[in-house]
């Protein structure tokens, strides 16, 4: 199973974070990432730049409205994520707990959907069966 660890911080934590020694922060995060890599569980991960550089595309209106800056009324900012391989919810939680974050920060942990999570009678999956039928009769590769 795959889990996404979503890093969220409130405004105060983001400000406090800017006061920290950058090298120490980088070192702690680097060590955490390395522990994920050496355990073979890190699948993906990115950090995000300052929310002030971002913008929001709001679908309340048609066409959607583009607004500069972060979420507006929301008090929490989404700062980055990891995707890890874990055999259970508890294992994902155990990895999340090891992340070097402080007060004001949260990790939201969500399981990534797999194929089995989708209804198999979906229109697109039915279409696929049609495509497969068209492809019948071709040479099967033994390398498979």
């Amino acid at each position, binding site marked *: 199973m795959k889990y996404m660890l979503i890093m969220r911080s409130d405004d105060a934590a983001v400000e406090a974070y800017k006061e920290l020694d950058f090298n120490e922060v980088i070192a702690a995060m680097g060590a955490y990432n390395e522990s994920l890599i050496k355990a073979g569980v890190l*699948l993906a991960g990115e950090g995000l730049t300052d929310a002030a550089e971002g913008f929001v595309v709001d679908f309340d209106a048609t066409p959607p409205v583009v607004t500069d800056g972060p979420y507006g009324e929301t008090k929490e900012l989404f700062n980055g994520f990891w995707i890890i*391989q874990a*055999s259970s919810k508890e*294992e994902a939680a155990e990895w999340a707990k090891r992340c070097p974050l402080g007060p004001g920060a949260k990790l939201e942990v969500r399981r990534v959907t797999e194929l089995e999570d989708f209804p198999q009678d979906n229109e697109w999956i039915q279409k696929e069966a049609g495509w497969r039928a068209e492809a019948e009769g071709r040479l099967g*590769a033994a*390398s498979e």
Partner: protein
Amino acid sequence: MTETDATGAIGGADDAADRARRAAAAVWRIESARIVATLTRFVGDVGQAEDLAQEALVEALRQWPDEGVPNNPGAWLTAVAKRRAIDGWRRRERLDERYAAMAHDLERDGAAASDTFWDPDTIDDDILRLIFVSCHPVLSREAQIALTLRIVGGLSSEEIARAFLVPTATIQQRIVRAKKTLAAAKVPFEVPEPDQYAERLGSVLSVLYLIFNEGYLPASGTEWMRPDVSAEALRLARMVAGLMPREPEAQSLVALMEFTASRFPARTKRDGTPIPLDEQDRSRWDRSQIARGREALARADRVGRGRAAYGLQAAIAECHAVAASVDDTDWARIVLLYEALGRIAPSPVVELNRAVAVAMSTGPASALRIVDELERSGKLAGYPALPAVRGELLSRLGRTQEARGELETAARLTGNERERAALLAKAAALPR
């Protein structure tokens, strides 16, 4: 030697204790390799170290439900196991100088946590030693596989048994015997010497690849795929590659597994019937997994020592992974890669795969010549893929009568029921 297997007890119905048990299982999975590696350095024997670690886990399952999970659960387990080792030595009145010195060290380190436990360099080296010992040539392949999953992967005997479709008792016996063999052979807790390094690394990588293959192409049974086994093999391969960034073949094995696993979502129909490569819906292939495979292969290439067997196989898998369709695939390049693979690791299976690539690149007639030559050599007698491929080639050449016979032969030879059904369906669909 008794076989303690505390992880097997995890997941009971008792609600109050269940959360702590599940937490203990999670900690165990993450920490067992470093715990056992640390303990092996301490007691000198992998088997004994693993027994001690399992005993500590039993202790955790007793204490954690009431007292909560400690802040540093891995260090807690290690400390409990070390204390048990010392108690054992005292009981046996063998507290000679060596053990006295160890006891002194332990007390100096503090009983609750040990500093060396978190020293990344020491622990990485110890985990590497553990991996090499688990795949040591004094052990049979089956023992290497069981021990690697148990000690390095942190799986319970029950989980390993489920993965390999054998009774739990069989796995437990394999592990007990493997530990005895390692002790009897006095296998040192070391990374191999340079003159043996390549061969021993090859053994580690092939154990991981066998585990991976078990998950996606089981030789028998009704289940075509058990992706959990492959996912575990991939995790272990990434772990090994992370510990040996300068070993191109370790990186290449990761790449090969990522490319292969990227196709899992497209490999079977709803009822479990396998779908061959050319019929797979490529939009279902896991693109991020393919990207990870390409990154791993690029890491292997950056070392600058060329491509060996896993590197070439990964490169072949990459050709498929990046092609939009069967027709869009660079079959000529795949033929060249199989030729290179055949030179460094000659094998009739590689030759058969080369024949398939030749069929796609230059046509079925030249491919059939390669397959006929293979058949005459008798090297693949009893191997279902030989008549399966021959049947396909004959069918493309319009020789349907012979094709049907070959497909039926392949169906008789395969141990996988899904594959048998698919072959028979193909034979039945041929024009009379």
